[in-house]
């Protein structure tokens, strides 16, 4: 849960950079406009979350998944995002999976060799679990944010 209201804002420096990259060179974006876009982005996240959550609830799932988010985009009439999102997800999975999948492949090979090696299986499961829960590394990202601010 957010402790301070400003925790629900997105970092201004990053938002400003994205805006700058989207617009033609040399366009001057007023401070007010930047703040408004940042707030709009937060509202967008909430709206998308709520739509995605509806899809998850309909399917009687508690965890939001990629399909829910994509379905939400369609419902919100942001179909234009679907293709780039799918592409980005592929790249992301590739990047994220590099280390893990190598490890998994090795483990799977080993598993195939010796089905009875339960200790290794448990180890693998633990690793996978950690990958699912913690890859966001909130502290590191906060640091990055601050770097950008300077």
């Amino acid at each position: 849960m957010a402790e301070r209201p400003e925790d629900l804002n997105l970092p201004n420096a990053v938002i400003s950079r994205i805006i700058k990259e989207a617009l033609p060179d040399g366009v001057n974006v007023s401070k007010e406009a930047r703040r408004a876009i940042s707030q709009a982005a937060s509202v967008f996240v909430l709206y998308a979350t709520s739509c995605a959550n509806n899809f998850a609830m309909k399917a009687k799932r508690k965890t939001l998944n990629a399909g829910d988010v994509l379905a939400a985009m369609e419902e919100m009439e942001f179909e234009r995002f679907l293709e780039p999102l799918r592409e980005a997800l592929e790249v992301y999975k590739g990047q994220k999976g590099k280390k893990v999948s190598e490890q998994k492949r090795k483990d799977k090979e080993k598993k195939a060799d010796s089905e009875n090696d339960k200790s290794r299986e448990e180890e693998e499961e633990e690793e996978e679990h950690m990958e699912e829960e913690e890859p966001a590394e909130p502290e590191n990202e906060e640091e990055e944010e601050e770097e950008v601010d300077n």
Partner: protein
Amino acid sequence: MSQNNPDKDDQKSGSKKTISLPISRVRLIMKSSPDVSSINQDALFLTTKATELFVQHLALSSFNNGPGKETNTLSYSDLANTAEETDTFHFLTDILPKKILARDYLESLEQMQEEEADF
């Protein structure tokens, strides 16, 4: 520094491929929604990426629809107009209200008071 950190370099040079907004912050916003219990990593990534696409799309649409092309500016009123005029951005009208002059507001206020006084 950059030699030790190839991932970071990738993010900067290929910003279209990865994300620049902090996933942790997006998760915080998502979790502030009371009926969301858990979000898997891919859904989190997609929402973050979608938010970036949204920011680009909102900025560019507002710039293209607005009068700022000649002066090379993007102003608040361009955004408020886009929210009002474009269906997909309609959900933003509450947080991007159109501005009115205090003079006009006072006028309408006076009018309302006069109407009330009539009763």
